């Protein structure tokens, strides 16, 4: 409503400007003298000429409303209506006055200079025009300015905030609602955008929940699988005592071996899932370095390793998790190298280094950086069982203890290097 009114006002003002301008131009254009008036004047002067010349009276009685100057044949001024009008022929020419001869009995006796007042008339018209135009322009300016402000507030600003909102949503920030003004059309429009945000947030949360429950299911299942395997192993142990036939014993041993394998795989799976759930908690504490010897001996259940004496110091680690790392590394060495092993220690500045070495093939240099990746299995591991999770978990545990794990191919074997922090 208001907008329409303002628009009509604006157009009306423009029309007024146009009409006024046109009228003024018309008036300015109309500069011609009234021929009848001029003829009347010259006749009246002609009639009065004699009296004028004789009396030398400087009055011309005329009922015609024109300013003029009367000159005789010699250019001498006889009469003028106003001292401000042209007084000589030269001045009259300059002012574009009309010059008319006065003829008496077919003889030219003098001249009338009829003053051309168009200049002053134009000036007065122009002033009028300026006033009208100035007034309307100011009103138009106010209208335009107001409209620009209105546009900025109602259209451009909401668009800007919509743009910022879209950037935030794209950046994953779904928590902040879009500020909006429901009092105009645009507000309603933006509301639908905000609706989109809430829906997006809901969808994302649902996705996270689904993922979480999937992982939890895996963790739970892998735990559940362990129970029947434990029963199988218990029964096997019993059978191994009873059965004497070597062939049957061999078969039972294979079953035992496979059960162990399943157990290991499930453990790996369990830990990998736990780690994803961020529930593989690691408590780093100060421990005597001598505890490492116990951990290593327990990991080396096949007694294949020669373990150096451990240098004294106080270390930071989680004994339970470090045992897991050692178990994994020794398990790998048994599985892939199956040679004798050596364990060395070294203290370098703030780090305690553990070198676990076997004399097997190891992995190629290109693969050395990859074997710690999730699900990665080295080429030589193809015919062996495994899921590619063991070293991944080892690295995760070592990193959580502020330590590192690296591997290196030596001249005669393969070496894992672990670093722990001194307390």
């Amino acid at each position, binding site marked *: 409503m208001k907008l329409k009114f303002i628009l009509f006002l604006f157009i009306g003002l423009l029309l007024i400007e146009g009409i006024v301008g046109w009228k003024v131009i018309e008036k300015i254009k109309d500069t011609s003298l009234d021929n009848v008036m001029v003829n009347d004047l010259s006749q009246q002067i002609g009639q009065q000429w004699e009296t004028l010349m004789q009396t030398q009276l400087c009055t011309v009685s005329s009922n015609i409303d024109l300013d003029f100057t009367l000159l005789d044949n010699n250019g001498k001024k006889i009469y003028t209506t106003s001292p401000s009008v042209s007084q000589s022929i030269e001045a009259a020419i300059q002012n574009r006055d009309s010059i008319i001869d006065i003829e008496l009995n077919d003889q030219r006796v003098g001249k009338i200079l009829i003053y051309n007042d168009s200049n002053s008339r134009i000036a007065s018209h122009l002033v009028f025009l300026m006033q009208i135009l100035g007034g309307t322009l100011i009103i138009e300016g106010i209208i335009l300015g107001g409209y620009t402000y209105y546009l900025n507030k109602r259209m451009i600003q909401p668009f800007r905030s919509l743009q910022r909102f879209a950037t935030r949503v794209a950046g994953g920030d779904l928590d902040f609602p879009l500020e909006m003004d429901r009092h105009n059309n645009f507000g309603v429009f933006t509301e639908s955008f905000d609706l989109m945000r809430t829906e997006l947030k809901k969808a994302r949360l649902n996705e996270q929940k689904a993922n979480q429950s999937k992982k939890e299911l895996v963790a739970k299942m892998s735990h559940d699988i362990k129970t029947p395997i434990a029963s199988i192993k218990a029964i096997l142990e019993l059978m191994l005592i009873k059965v004497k036939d070597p062939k049957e014993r061999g078969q039972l041993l294979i079953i035992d071996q496979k059960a162990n394998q399943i157990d290991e795989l499930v453990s790996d799976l369990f830990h990998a899932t736990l780690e994803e759930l961020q529930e593989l908690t690691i408590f780093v504490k100060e421990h*005597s370095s001598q505890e490492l010897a116990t951990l290593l001996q327990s990991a080396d259940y096949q007694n294949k390793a020669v373990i150096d004496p451990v240098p*004294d*110091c*106080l270390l930071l680690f989680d004994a339970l998790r470090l045992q897991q790392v050692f178990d994994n590394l020794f398990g790998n060495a048994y599985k892939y190298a199956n040679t004798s092993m050596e364990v060395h220690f070294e203290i370098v500045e703030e780090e305690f280094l553990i070198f676990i070495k076997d004399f097997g093939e190891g992995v190629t240099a290109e693969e050395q950086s990859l074997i710690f990746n999730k699900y990665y299995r080295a080429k030589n591991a193809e015919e062996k069982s495994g899921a590619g999770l063991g070293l991944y978990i080892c690295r995760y545990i070592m990193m959580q203890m502020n330590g590192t794990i690296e591997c290196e191919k030596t001249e005669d074997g393969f070496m894992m290097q672990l670093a722990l922090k001194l*307390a």
Partner: protein
Amino acid sequence: MEKMISTQKLCKTFSSGGVLQHILKNLDLEIYEGDFTVIMGPSGAGKSTLLYALSGMDKPSLGKIYFRDEEISDYSDDRLAVFRRHHCGFVFQQIYLQDNMSVMDNILSAGLLVSRKKKEVVQRAQELLSLVAMKEELYHKFPAQLSGGEAQRAGIVRALINQPDILFADEPTGQLNSYASKAVLDVLTALNKDGQSIVMVTHDVLSARRANRILYLQDGAIYGECDLGDYVPNDEKRHDRLTAFLKEMGW
């Protein structure tokens, strides 16, 4: 300067109520011959524990301690006692003079544990007593009749009677007034000038000024070290350096 005592990853762990408390953690340090070394640090940092470990009064839980080139950390208790008697002198905050023995007897009993030559021991005791400015009339008084400062000076003489390689002092001025403290510190400074190696634990800045090397202990590890150079009385610059160092350590 020659190394006198050095440690490698020295650790000391106490167990209280099943909770392990690691007082010293992987400490690597060296004490040099002829130095007046001061160990400073906040309460509970492990200063006294370190002093007892260095002097062989207590065994480390982990790590090694070398006296000159000998590893003393794996000595048996008996062997450690002999080692202490021959190489170490001790001065404590609570002086520990025998109450029922005179000053002289206190000193001689320590001396005669090591040497059988009584004449020599007596002569050395008298020399040392005069060195610490002990009046002769006090020689045969009982500890209860002495002032704190006098008792501590007697304690120093007892610590030095067997000509130890190194003198360990645990807050020797902790119980003394400022005048007596100054006297005791002057004695220690003079001894050090004559070449006596001293390791002193203190948390008193005035005592620390006497050192030429300061080790700052925090959370069971050496947190900082400051080499002050030989002690000069009323040296403003030296004092400023010490203050700046302690400020940096968060004293």
